């Protein structure tokens, strides 16, 4: 089993990162929507903490993935039926990366702006990245919400796109799953 990427296929690290982040994101879209609807209380505070901790982990994993792909470039996308498909796929991929940086950063900034410490898994205090400010925190959470809706839309495009190119040998999905 190859660890690094080759011109032909994805190595182990890229695949583990892809599916690990994917799973975390799906869980986080659900968890985020859920906590957004609840009234904070002593009994549910830990869910907010959990959301922040997983979100910061995703941020780190996305940075690791970006760094890794500079060092070990992923295989180029296979030629598609229409040039616009390739263009769309690339645009979606880069937008996903952008959102996966912007979403945790806005969540972190908005949380910092409330003046409340952000704890990583109840244990380490993460430094604030925004000064205490009510307007900054409102703005940050508004952006966090809008960006997560965009992410849901892009994920749908990403999944439909991947499935359109089949699941058989040589398909993008197969390469990401098996290498």
């Amino acid at each position, binding site marked *: 089993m190859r660890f690094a990427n080759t011109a032909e296929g994805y190595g182990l690290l890229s695949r583990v990162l892809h599916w690990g982040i994917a799973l975390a994101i799906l869980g986080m879209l659900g968890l985020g929507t859920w906590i957004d609807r609840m*009234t*904070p*209380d*002593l*009994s549910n*505070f830990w869910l907010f903490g959990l959301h922040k901790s997983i979100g910061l982990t995703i941020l780190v994993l996305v940075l690791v993935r970006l760094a890794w792909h500079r060092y070990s470039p992923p295989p180029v996308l296979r030629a598609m039926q229409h040039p616009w498909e390739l263009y769309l796929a690339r645009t979606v991929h880069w937008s996903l990366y952008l959102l996966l940086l912007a979403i945790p950063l806005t969540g972190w900034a908005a949380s910092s*702006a*409330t*003046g*409340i*410490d952000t704890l990583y898994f109840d244990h380490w205090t993460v430094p604030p990245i925004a*000064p*205490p*400010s*009510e307007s900054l*925190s409102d703005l940050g959470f508004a952006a966090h919400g809008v960006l997560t809706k965009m992410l849901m839309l892009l994920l749908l495009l990403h999944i439909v796109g991947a499935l359109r190119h089949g699941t058989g040998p040589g398909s993008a999905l197969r390469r990401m799953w098996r290498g």
Partner: protein
Amino acid sequence: MTPLRRPPDGRMRAALLALVLALLSVAPASAATHYLLDGSGSQVGFSTDFGNSKITGNFPVSAADLELDFRDVARSNVSVTLDVRSAVASFPFAAQAMKGPKVLDARRHPTIGFRSTRVRRSGNGAVIDGALTLRGVTQPVSLYAVFARPVGSDPGDLDHLIIRLTGAIQRSAFGATGWPDAVGDEVQLDITAWIVRVD
């Protein structure tokens, strides 16, 4: 001085009544007596609803200046200053949320001030109407005051006193509106200040 950590009830109430009588008979007929904060133990306890639980905590009193006229209480004046940045609460998140920009905004408004506008006798104590400045907003607030003697002091000794003020405020009136769904609007206050006569 012996710190008093108990509200003045039970045996304290008896001492209190004795004190009021003593003050009436002992206090000079003339002017008010000047008192300042004594030591660093004075604090403002607060409590408010938080879902099914409560948030409690306290602020240190950083200054108090009182002109007390025990004969003619209406001639008394009280002013108290609190240090918002040193407030503590029953759990750390609550203190941070409270000092944060959505509630007290301690960075811009590091102190809370109270200044009496009218004092009148009521029962064993006094009702103090005044202006409370919190988050830069000033609103009228009424507090109920009772006096007590530190444990162990002589009945006629007015050099050291304890003033206990109780009351409630609506935090929304001051623009301290953060987390309105989770945290109660009414905040109960219970101030205990040790004061010492300075003239």
